[in-house]
């Protein structure tokens, strides 16, 4: 544990000055795995850190919370240097202005809901009475007044989640960290809790980082999405951009699009395996081509006419997907297609059956692959 030297950065008075409330470049080595994540979050902004299991989401959260030291890089929060291996600065967890909602909440089982929420304020110098008063206020905001005396094991999942949120917010954190905050809830409770969580996050004046693998949580709760794979950022942006223009297979699956990479010449894109797609967008150079499964039409014979992309394919799998069926197809282009049950019955779709797939050029979207992340 190193006591921080008073550096110029530490003395900056205004927490809201600078590019963001949180300005970090998190580099953490764990064996052969390396997390390398530049991250800035503005005051009041909610950023979702999204990625598959093992991408480094939890490592990033633990580094921000001070539960894991940085290998390199820096972490500045509200103008204070919290972790900077290069300068030998390290502020331990208990002295960081943070609040954490853990995946399974980790409410102290021996304390009532009220005392769980009062725990933080008490450690931050409030008297027992003041801390309890403050905690009671937070429980009221969460609609839990009548549950204040209950022990965590007497609370439902949704109630425990709100107590955990109240406990994290009761210390007025400059940075609120949420680790899969809805993962432990059943589907029905998740819906209600997500809506409430959104209100509380919107009201939180500090920065918020939401770690999740659920794209719906990210899209509903966050202002901006940062998607990481293998410890690196693969895509970053607002929900609209990411859902329209995924840049990796993982993101494409997340937002439910078919995604291909190829070389564009005007309206034509030659994919890696040589197949040619026609797009309405016009580009030159490396591009991504994306289209929705619903844009793929299936035909028993090769369709003719119209500016369509067509190719022969074989059905490999059929799954329910909402009200439709999602058909997985192999062929020159691996593709997912959504068809109505009626259409599927009419075409007598079954695994192993050869069909023709068709996508209108106007239903595709092509965008450059080179620039940005």
């Amino acid at each position: 544990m190193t006591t921080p030297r008073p550096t110029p950065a530490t003395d900056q008075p205004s927490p809201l000055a600078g590019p963001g409330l949180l300005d970090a470049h998190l580099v953490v080595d764990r064996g052969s795995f390396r997390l390398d994540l530049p991250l800035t979050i503005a005051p009041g902004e909610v950023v979702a850190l999204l990625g598959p299991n093992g991408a480094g989401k939890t490592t990033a959260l633990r580094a921000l919370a001070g539960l894991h030291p940085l290998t390199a890089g820096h972490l500045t929060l509200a103008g204070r240097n919290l972790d900077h291996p290069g300068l030998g600065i390290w502020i331990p967890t208990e002295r960081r202005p943070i609040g954490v909602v853990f995946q399974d909440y980790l409410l102290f089982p021996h304390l009532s809901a009220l005392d769980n929420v009062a725990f933080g304020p008490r450690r931050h110098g409030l008297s027992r009475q003041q801390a309890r008063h403050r905690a009671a206020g937070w429980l009221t905001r969460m609609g839990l007044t009548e549950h204040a005396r209950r022990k965590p094991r007497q609370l439902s999942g949704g109630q425990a989640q709100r107590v955990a949120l109240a406990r994290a917010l009761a210390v007025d954190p400059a940075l609120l960290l949420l680790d899969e905050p809805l993962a432990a809830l059943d589907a029905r409770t998740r819906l209600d809790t997500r809506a409430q969580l959104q209100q509380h996050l919107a009201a939180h004046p500090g920065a918020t980082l939401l770690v999740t693998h659920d794209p719906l949580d990210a899209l509903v709760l966050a202002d901006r999405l940062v998607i990481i794979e293998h410890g690196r950022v693969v895509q970053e942006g607002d929900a609209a951009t990411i859902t329209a223009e995924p840049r990796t297979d993982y993101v494409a699956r997340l937002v439910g699009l078919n995604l291909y990479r190829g070389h564009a010449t005007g309206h034509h894109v030659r994919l890696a395996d040589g197949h040619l797609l026609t797009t309405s967008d016009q580009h030159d150079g490396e591009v991504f081509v994306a289209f929705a499964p619903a844009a793929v039409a299936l035909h028993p014979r090769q369709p003719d006419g119209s500016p369509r992309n067509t190719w022969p394919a074989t059905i490999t799998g059929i799954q329910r997907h909402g009200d439709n069926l999602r058909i997985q197809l192999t062929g020159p282009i691996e593709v997912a297609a959504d068809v109505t049950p009626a259409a599927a019955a009419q075409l007598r779709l079954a695994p192993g059956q050869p069909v023709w797939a068709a996508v209108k050029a106007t239903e595709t979207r092509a965008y450059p692959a080179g620039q940005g992340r």
Partner: protein
Amino acid sequence: MLGATREAPPARRISHARRIPVALLLPAAIGLLFLLLPLVGLLVRTPWATLPQRLTEPGLLTALRLSVQTATLATLLCLALGVPLAWLLARVPFPGRRLVRALVTVPLVLPPVVGGVALLLVFGRRGLVGSWLDETFGVTLPFTTTAVVLAQAFVAMPFLIIAVEGALRGADTRYEEAAATLGAGRWTTFTHVTLPLVAPGVAAGAVLGWARALGEFGATITFAGNYPGRTQTMPVAVYLALETDLEAAIVLSLILLTVSVVILASLRDRWVSAP
């Protein structure tokens, strides 16, 4: 998944199908008898008619009071030193931790008499620490009530440490991380989060240690001797009474047995079976 869909046979059929082999049942029964018969013998030979009168004998009451007092003091000493040591062993990785853990349990397997001799060599008037205590403070430990407490703490501490360390290792350390994110330092976390979480383990360890201290004989008689009212605890009194007054020895033993059973029962109900 064929196996998952097939129904499991009812439990009763298993007990029918699987007979208990005589080769196991017979020694098991003999073992049980071996453990219980001496206790039954004690009850059979108890002089029930004169029991009330015997129980109020001043010598017995003195020994009982001394035993309870010293065992309680020894337990407090074990708690004050053993809980921090258990925490260190469970939470702080340091070189030689496994060796220290092994050394801590030595008094468990060491014959108590040997423990008493060792204590005498260290805390005796010419011992390593004892000579210093004598010269500096004019304090001599052997054959005092303090020596009784030390002897009992020496044999009881491993019980407490093992129980508390086990509880600490079983406790979820992420609660401690959660406490840190709320601004609690390591000491506050220990007192406000860790200790309450492992309280059942600490209590069980304390009760076990207390029972072990209460029954301590070998180290006590070696290091503290046998002075009525000062170092003559219940087990020592039992041993001496055997030579002069068998009935008195039986009564003393009955009391110790009762205390043991009460402790066992309280442990089972309150801590061992608790979640």
